[in-house]
């Protein structure tokens, strides 16, 4: 066998065993277990309270707005990790550059804030 693939052999064994074990247990429970359904058992689980509404509810657009803002700012923050790791080598000039970058992000945040896009309670 290809030596590169050989190193994955134990993993393959684990996967095969896990699938067999899982299927066996589920199958046995299905065959041997008693089946007495009632209303509470067959309804979907919603933290113990009585389920309300349909499962495929629509979400308010403000969730979408917040999620997008989160994604954009989150991804911008990614640039700070490699910078932080190598700050010792890069020195003060890189600190200034990152400060400018951060300031630009802050301008964006201030704009979003004043526009009311992150005001959760506003109707």
């Amino acid at each position, binding site marked *: 066998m290809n030596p590169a693939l050989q190193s994955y052999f134990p993993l393959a064994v684990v996967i095969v065993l896990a699938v067999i074990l899982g299927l066996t247990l589920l199958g046995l429970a299905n065959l041997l277990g008693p089946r007495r359904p009632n209303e509470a058992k067959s309804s979907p689980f919603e933290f113990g309270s009585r389920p309300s509404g349909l499962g495929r509810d629509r979400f308010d657009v403000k969730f979408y707005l917040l999620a997008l803002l989160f994604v954009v700012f989150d991804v911008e923050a990614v640039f700070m990790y490699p910078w932080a790791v190598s700050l010792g080598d890069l*020195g003060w000039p*890189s600190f200034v550059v990152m400060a400018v970058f951060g300031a630009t992000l802050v*301008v964006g945040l*201030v*704009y979003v804030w*004043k526009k009311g896009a992150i005001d959760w309670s506003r109707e």
Partner: protein
Amino acid sequence: MPSGQDIAALLPFLLLVLGALVLMLSEVFLRSGGRGYQSGLTIAFAAAAALAVPFAPQQVLFGGQAVSDGFAGFVTMVVCAGLALSALLGRGWLETRNMERGEYYALALFGASGMVLLGMATDLLLAFIAIEVMSLAVYSLAAYPRRGQRPPEAAFKYFILGSFASAILLYGSALYYGATGSTLLSAMRGGGGALLAAGLSLILVGLAFKVAAVPFHAWTPDVYEGAPTPATAFMAAGVKAAAFAFLTRGVLAMVAGTPFAVGNELGGVLGLLAVLTMVVGNLFALPQRNVKRMLAYSSIAQAGYLLVGVIAASRPESRAQGTSAVLVYLAAYAVTVIGAFSVLAVMEKREPTPDAGSADAWDVSRFAGLASRRPWLAFAMAIFMLSLAGVPPTAGFVAKLSVFQAAAGAKAWGLVVVGVLTSIMGVYYYLRVVVAMYMQPAEMEEPAAAPPTVAIAIAVAALLVVVVGFSPEPLTAWARAALLRM
């Protein structure tokens, strides 16, 4: 690390970004009074960026990823002029529709900063980022009014096809990176092989989408028609200039560094693109009665003539002639097209409800008899139409002449013949507007008066077109001096 020199070289770009941030904040902090100052601020930042160009040291930036050469400086000037003129146009257009906001100007400034950066880029990654900065701003401008069905649809089509093109360009860059170990255009030197060829082909396809070359032009008419008119003017002038600047740099690097011939006359890839673009753009413009759509097809045709200039630039014997011809063409087209769209903005029908049957909002019949009602407006429109058609004495004639001269210098006679023949075809549909204005009786209601800022934009553009038409020497000399450093 950035030195003082680097910052000076980047100053035009930095000023545009700063302007965008200032206008963004002005919208949330200073909106109590009127918004008249916003267009003024935008023009001030555009002027400051243009003024910073002569002081920018000519040097290589970011370890070879960008260069602040004369070529980039010229493109920056064209972009700033386009930004200022379309801010003037935007002020009047938006104010009469009661939708003037700081975001409009901020987006235009962000877009212009991307265009300036693209004009400087000599690296595929930097070019990708610059293209995205420019495009995301322009997509948003297209959707800006958020009224009626057309603007969101225009933005939607532009976004889908534009980001599709960007993704193709990026994948091509990835293959290029695999073949050369770098994303610098200069890394092509001495390269070859299937991987590099595949990468370069995908990059070329992505750029052909951006410059709207046939057969990658399908989005243009819909986007130009649906976007608000000032945004259309800005994208026609600015996006075209920036994308062609990078295309020229890329093609020159390709010719210098690889065994692939892209610029051969009719046989080569670019030659084929140029011929198709000139012929198809003009043919589709012929039957258009909708003037806005006609201008969109005209912009496709103009991309064909610009490609002829790029091909001339790719030949060693006509390289300097070709690059300066591209620059002259970009400058002349930018001013002319913004002027034409400004007149169109005055003439377009304002619907009481946004979705009313507005297919005839830009119909050529709205121009009928304009010469007797608004002689100056009709005169300006006639100048812009003649310039687009390439009739002397206008800037458009100077531009077409220098492109065809450069192609003749490259001995690309086939391209010259196709170019001249399609230009003659173009005269027909441009003159239809002139004929309607001067020889047909007025049918429609009295056109609305041009807001003062729009009138200024029209006057400045018309003056520039005529001055360059009568004495082209300053512009062509400047373009010849704007050297391109690899």
